[in-house]
């Protein structure tokens, strides 16, 4: 945790994420009713409406803040479910190996290779519109990726001594998976969770942009849906789509930053290279640079 706090990427990413989580939790109390007709439509930002108004005369700031709540909560729920399913399928395939692994791997790879959006569209079109359907669709199309990374980790953990020891001791497979294998991939699961949340937010926004969500709800995706429907580009009302887009990008960027930082922390070579660069005051490391000579008493 100390290391995390001393990493600039982690700090920056964490700060953005905390800001948006706060915004999602308490933000809606401080802004106007996001659905209310509060002024003339398509007004540029002003003192009354800091981010202007939409084509329906709603406050853009209020909509952006309110959108955070639904988009983030769905993102987190889907992220969690995706990793849970991925962990279940991935460890089963990786731990048992043999035909179990063959079958599960094929299923994982088939889902992995199918382009997500058309499948999502077909599923979402048949399901009644709403956050539940969106979440279901995102989980169905997203689990395979985390199952894949968990599987390969489980495969390598299975060959470790402590697993062999547990097997010899007669532990049941379920217990070995729960006690020996899963705890040893915590960092992988955390980073898969962050990645899956990122995926879920982006995919949700995309689906709702297509009009496959509940268009009367206020989410980041429907904000963008209404912006195009109300001819934001034609009328030059950039303020109807820029704030939401920036919000989505900032959240996604912060998640990527946090994941990169976690990666760096778990990689001793990267850390020692950083120490090397700093100690020698170098600009870059390259295979083509000769070993430096720095005279220095012991």
């Amino acid at each position, binding site marked *: 945790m100390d290391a995390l706090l001393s990493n600039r990427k982690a700090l920056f990413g964490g700060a953005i994420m905390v800001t948006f989580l706060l915004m999602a939790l308490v933000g809606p109390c401080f802004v106007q009713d996001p659905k209310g007709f509060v002024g003339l439509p398509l007004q540029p930002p002003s003192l009354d409406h800091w981010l202007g108004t939409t084509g329906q005369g709603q406050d853009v700031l209020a909509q952006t803040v309110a959108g955070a709540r639904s988009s983030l909560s769905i993102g987190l729920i889907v992220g969690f479910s995706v990793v849970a399913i991925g962990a279940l399928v991935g460890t089963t395939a990786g731990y048992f190996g043999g035909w179990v692994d063959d079958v599960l791997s094929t299923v994982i790879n088939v889902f992995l*290779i199918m382009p*997500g*959006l058309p499948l999502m*569209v*077909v599923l979402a079109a048949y399901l009644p519109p709403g956050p539940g359907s969106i979440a279901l669709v995102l989980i169905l199309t997203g689990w395979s990726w985390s199952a894949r990374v968990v599987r390969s980790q489980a495969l390598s953990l299975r060959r470790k001594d402590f697993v062999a020891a547990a097997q010899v001791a007669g532990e049941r497979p379920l217990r070995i998976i729960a006690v020996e294998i899963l705890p040893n991939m915590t960092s992988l699961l955390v980073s898969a969770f962050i990645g899956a949340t990122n995926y879920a937010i982006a995919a949700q926004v995309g689906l709702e942009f297509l009009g496959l969500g509940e268009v009367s709800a206020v989410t980041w995706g429907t904000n963008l849906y209404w912006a195009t429907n109300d001819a934001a580009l*034609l009328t030059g009302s950039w303020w109807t789509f820029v704030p939401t887009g920036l919000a989505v*990008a900032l959240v996604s960027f912060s998640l990527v930053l946090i994941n990169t930082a976690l990666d760096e922390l778990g990689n001793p070579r990267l850390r020692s290279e950083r120490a090397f660069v700093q100690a020698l005051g170098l600009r870059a490391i390259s*295979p*083509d640079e000769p070993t430096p000579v720095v005279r220095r008493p012991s």
Partner: protein
Amino acid sequence: MKYVLRRLLFYVIAAWASVTLAFFIPRMMPGDPTSTMFARFKGKLDPAALDDLRAAFGFTDGTLLEQYGVYLGNVLRGELGISIEYYPATVSSVIGNALVWTLVLAGVAVVISFTLGTLGGVLAAWRRGGWLDSTLPPLFVLLGAFPYFWLAMALLFVLGFQLELFPLGHAYDDRIAPEASWAFFSSVVGHAVLPAATIVLATMGAWMLDMRNTMIAVMGEDYIKLAVAKGLSPRRVMLRYAARNALLPNVTSFGMALGFVVSGSILTEIVFSYPGQGYLLLQAVQSQDYPLMQGLFLTITLAVLGANLLVDVAYAWLDPRTRQG
């Protein structure tokens, strides 16, 4: 050869799974969307055509298994039913007309983005921490954080609407006849620039980071150290020794990511009213044209599978260890 055959088997399984999925989705859904769908056709279609459509979906009399058989046969023959939106055109013909636009746009954009991204990754990794490495990856990660279609909107807004540098949509100027003329060709290119640029900007970062990471792993190998010790030129070590090896795993992840890229380019097409698969998909959603939706799902999925097969062949050819195996 064995490698390619094994992959081929996998793609056959994947194709069968997608086709089957498309069969079961309408049957598993709550409510009864299919009867709603056929009800919508009632006014438009004569009873014979309606029966054809039922057959295309496999909603014939008989057991589920028999229905599945009829459906599989139809898909194999490329009969995907009739579009509601474009009635009386068949789904296959509607999709076929739009397919070439998507293939050209997404194909060209993906190749450009993969090439540039890979090159960027090679250069960034070669001088880790250098100025290229400390500017390009963060910049493209930030760009990649925006939804594709939002980047498309922003580009279209600034370069199309405000600065009027590019056309606002469609694949070519309506006033030009689609024929093999220079005017038509340049119009097509002019219309494709912004959508392609969007896809390139949005996806390049991922290829670049991937390549950078595999490069760094490869650069730890002994053969790189030996190449440096041989006094080869840095360019040769970087390209023939490091990049050539790092490219292989990257080609695999290229295939894996294609589905994702295609999904993004579909949304991009929508913003630019580009008459490809994405635009059709939006139409299908808006008019609840289930046959068209289903057809699009199958077409896009099979296209991605086909592209992956090509990638695998390329991999097998690039890697001497599979080339001879």
